[in-house]
């Protein structure tokens, strides 16, 4: 099945946060009411009951206030570190390539929280589970679009076939580069083989708070690819050695005077 992708053109985003509301509504998430922290941005990032968040970065360009909006949620990496580390397989890929979570399998160990290069999954204390966006897998399975794409009034959020959206995003970037030389597609090759959320950015990724060089953390390579599958054989070797020794010591002993039972024969 072809990958279904969310394409977010932040240059068309007006920061209305309709997607945040639609997401909460569809996923039946409560409001997470936090104190005002000096920004229009509602939350610092995703939260246990906030799967998507429009980040609002303020900056000054030529003495004028410039506001950068970017809807953020799980990036649905094609080669996802969180899926790799999840010990109970609660995180897995849907048939459309989204990273879905089976809460009944999640034990709240938070390995995925440490593995995610984007800091997306969040631990939900009342459930003792880790939650995040599932790219509306339940909706997509029924042929619908995601809740956020459905509600987006400016058409900044598109949902569909990855290859088509990627081609459209690249064409859009070509256009943007006439006025925004740093405009680029983000998510094409991030985290190794790309993500199932791609962005059309009007500026460098860092300007929107995206990691510049997003990749799987090094510990996953060491831990998951090298140690976990093979290191256990060291234990097996020790156990096998003991097993062999149990017999060989008794075989060799048969012909020898023994000191085993307490050194009664001190003649050797």
């Amino acid at each position, binding site marked *: 099945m072809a990958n279904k992708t969310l394409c977010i053109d932040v240059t068309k985003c007006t920061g209305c946060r309709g997607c945040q509301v639609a997401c909460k509504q569809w996923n039946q998430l409560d409001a997470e009411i936090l104190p005002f922290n000096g920004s229009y941005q509602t939350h610092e990032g995703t939260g246990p009951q906030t799967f998507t968040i429009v980040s609002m970065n303020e900056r000054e360009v030529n003495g004028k206030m410039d506001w950068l909006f970017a809807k953020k949620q799980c990036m649905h990496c094609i080669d996802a570190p969180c899926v790799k*580390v999840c*010990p*109970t397989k609660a995180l897995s890929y849907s048939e459309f390539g989204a990273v879905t979570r089976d809460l009944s399998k999640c*034990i709240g*160990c*938070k*390995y995925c*929280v*440490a*593995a995610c290069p984007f800091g997306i999954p969040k631990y939900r204390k009342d459930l*003792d589970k880790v939650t995040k966006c599932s790219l509306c897998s339940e909706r997509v399975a029924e042929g619908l679009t995601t809740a956020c794409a459905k509600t987006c009034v400016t058409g900044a959020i598109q949902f569909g076939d990855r290859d088509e959206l990627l081609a459209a995003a690249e064409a859009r970037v070509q256009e943007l580069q006439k006025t925004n030389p740093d405009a680029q597609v983000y998510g094409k090759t991030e985290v190794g083989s790309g993500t199932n959320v791609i962005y059309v950015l009007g500026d460098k990724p860092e300007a929107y708070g995206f990691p510049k060089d997003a990749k799987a*953390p*090094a*510990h996953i390579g*060491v*831990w998951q690819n090298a*140690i*976990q599958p093979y*290191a*256990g054989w*060291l*234990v097996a*070797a*020790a*156990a096998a*050695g*003991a097993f*062999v*020794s*149990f017999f*060989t*010591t*008794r*075989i*060799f*002993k048969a012909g*020898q005077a*023994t*000191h*085993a*039972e*307490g*050194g*009664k024969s*001190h003649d*050797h």
Partner: protein
Amino acid sequence: MTTERVERFKFSARFAHWGHTVTFLVLLFTGLTLYSDWFSFLIPIFGGREGAQLVHRIFAIGFTVIPIVCLIANPGGFVQWLKDVISWTWDDIKFIMVFPLEFFGLPVKIPPQGQFNGGEKMNSMVTTTSCVLLALSGYIMWFPQAFPMGLVRSAYPIHDICMVLATTMVCMHAYLGSFHTGSGESFWGMWKGTVRSDWAAHHHAKWFRQITDKDANSHHQYQWQRGAGK
């Protein structure tokens, strides 16, 4: 022949040893359920993954508290043991080199050993280091929000590596302390605290000389050594 015995391990050392035996094994088997699917058959024993997680955390506290209690109860002995196992002599290195043959029952000449032979020193060093790192990395993973992300990430491979190293040593150690024909009294040293003197003289000659010289000077119960016992 009367069997004279000498004290090998004080109660605090034995308590730490067996306390860690129980807690380590429970921690190992609860932890393995997450390490590999091979061990998923263990999950129902602990009442599901959540149960295994809870048991793991309860025993983790025991695992941490036991050595601390023993350190407080007998600081001198604890420090002496650590000092012993990190001080290596040429005899210990020779022991490590020839022991693989002895392990499989081949006759070898083993140099005289102190209270801990080279193998026991290696075991103590590896398991102690592993235990400390296991505990530290474990608490970091338990409370990830209290630590920087880089530290949390490194805790996973460290926990695994130390688990594998410690379990490897435990496999060898458990066998050598029980069914290995050359080890004899060593089990009772850790169980009852005392070992037969002739065994001590044979297996830990340097240590035996040390304790008997001290005791001989004070005219203690080891006078048998000058003729009586043999």
